[in-house]
């Protein structure tokens, strides 16, 4: 069989998920002695192709059209390439941009789409594993189609390494300019301001478990007591209780403090992506099944409104 994996880049950088897609794609191709094709669309495609040429890649298809990601270009280019290669599995990243073109590609090719796969297997057909209900349960999904589109969760597969001897083939996609009805006008960095949480040695981080805005004072007290910096998971920032520059996670900051104390944070994958590099992770949560305990080094399963005051007292 043929596996086609689509690389991702942004503002001149190949994104890490690209090499993870190569690993996932190679594993699938190996299951049937098949070939792994990689596509890279827009930007410095030759330079990207060079960096994508890792062990296990058979062919790299380059589509030179435009600089930055545009979903109308990607949709047309990937659809046409897939029509030509007829891959059994079409792998794309489960990223913000992946979700902006993968569904359209699947729709045009008439392929079923399985998003956010955390595991893939091929045995007479594709089986994907994904998580439901905020990682509380896992489900397996079988595709009965001859060909299936999948978006792959970042950081689930290791990055492909080594150097390959892939053939690089420019692909002449026919891009209908009149079908490009979105224009990227720029980029904006958000989350600047008084504090850079990625510089902190100790973070006290608060999540949805704090329930009310006024309860934040308790966590501020703890942060002051420990001489730590206050950070938060997404819901706190969505609610406007803390500014964006305090947000840890995929869409916020990636932090690597010596100690990260997660309080009332369930540990959704988007949050974990931002803090799993901390040296020591402490979790306080009343839900023993919260995914945060899967990556914590130390934990207390109890009500934060009982534990945090007691902890402050210990330091007074």
């Amino acid at each position: 069989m043929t596996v086609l994996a689509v690389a991702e880049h942004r503002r001149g950088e190949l994104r890490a998920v690209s090499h993870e897609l190569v690993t996932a794609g190679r594993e699938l191709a190996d299951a049937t002695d098949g070939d792994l094709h990689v596509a890279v669309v827009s930007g410095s495609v030759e330079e990207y192709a060079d960096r994508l040429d890792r062990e296990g890649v058979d062919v790299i298809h380059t589509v030179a059209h435009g600089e930055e990601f545009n979903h109308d270009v990607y949709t047309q280019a990937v659809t046409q390439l897939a029509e030509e290669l007829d891959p059994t599995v079409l792998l794309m990243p489960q990223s913000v941009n992946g979700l902006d073109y993968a569904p359209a590609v699947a729709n045009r090719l008439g392929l079923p789409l399985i998003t956010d796969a955390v595991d893939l297997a091929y045995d007479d057909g594709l089986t994907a594993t994904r998580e439901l209900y905020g990682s509380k349960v896992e489900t397996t999904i079988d595709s009965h189609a001859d060909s299936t589109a999948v978006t792959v969760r970042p950081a689930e597969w290791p990055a492909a390494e080594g150097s390959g001897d892939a053939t690089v083939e420019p692909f002449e996609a026919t891009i209908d300019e009149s079908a490009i009805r979105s224009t990227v006008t720029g980029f904006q960095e958000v989350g600047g301001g008084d504090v850079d949480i990625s510089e902190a040695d100790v973070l006290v981080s608060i999540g949805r478990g704090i329930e009310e805005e006024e309860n934040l004072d308790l966590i501020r007290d703890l942060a002051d007591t420990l001489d730590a910096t206050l950070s938060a998971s997404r819901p706190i920032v969505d609610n406007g209780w803390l500014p964006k520059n305090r947000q840890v996670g995929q869409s916020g900051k990636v932090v690597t403090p010596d100690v990260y104390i997660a309080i009332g944070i369930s540990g959704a994958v988007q949050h974990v992506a931002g803090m799993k590099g901390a040296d020591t992770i402490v979790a306080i949560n009343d839900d023993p099944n919260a995914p945060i305990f899967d990556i914590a080094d130390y934990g207390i399963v109890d009500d934060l409104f009982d534990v945090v005051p007691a902890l402050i007292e210990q330091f007074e």
Partner: protein
Amino acid sequence: MKVLVTVKEVTAVDDEFEIDGLDIDDRYVTADLNEWDEYAVEEAVQLSESLDDVEVVTVTIGPSDSEETIRQALAKGADRAIRVWDDALDDDAMLDPATKARLLAAVAEQEGPDLILTGVQSADDSLGATGVTLADQLGTEWAAVVNALDLDAEAGVAHVHRELEGGVEELTDVELPAVLTIQTGINDPRYASLRGIRQAQSKELAEKTLDDIGLDATALDSPIEQTALYEPESEGDATLYEGTPEETAGELAGLLAERGVGQ
């Protein structure tokens, strides 16, 4: 101008739960309006407040049980609601994005909205693909993961920010009509007023079968099948402190002191 908002009743699972076949046992779930959809509804209602002659219509795929949840959007200012359901839709079957989009597209074709807002994803299935699939089935433009919207209805353009990873936003102009998938945090969803809740009771909530929207049961055919549901094995090896809050806090304080925290 007409804005169509797709909404979904989702289930939240209790801390402790049991699995029943391919689903969570009903005893351990609570139904609510999908969080992302709340932001999409709010965005639509705000448009109707700032522009003249905007009608906000919600559409959901769900059984009659979901009506109470769907009325929350009416209570917050949506004008009317459409609920698609059919005996052919088995309550427990997983609907893939293409199937959902087919049903929603059939409604959109009847309604002819200028703008469609969806949540980025649902809190339970987290497929995150229905909105863009819907756009492509309709042949309209789209933008995924929108966290700022400035609509220029006269020019027929939506100026949006797309929330990329790592604190970067992409600024994009999208031609209307379009489907925008709305990210949490784009606005501050209101609470329904008592007056709104009362008014919602008399707002139109139309039920449509597959036949009503020009489809038959073949629209539900899907080549993907859910085969198992299970609790993942914990990968954790955390040291858990046990005891009263004073005892656990004491142990944690000892650890933090060892690490030089708070000294």
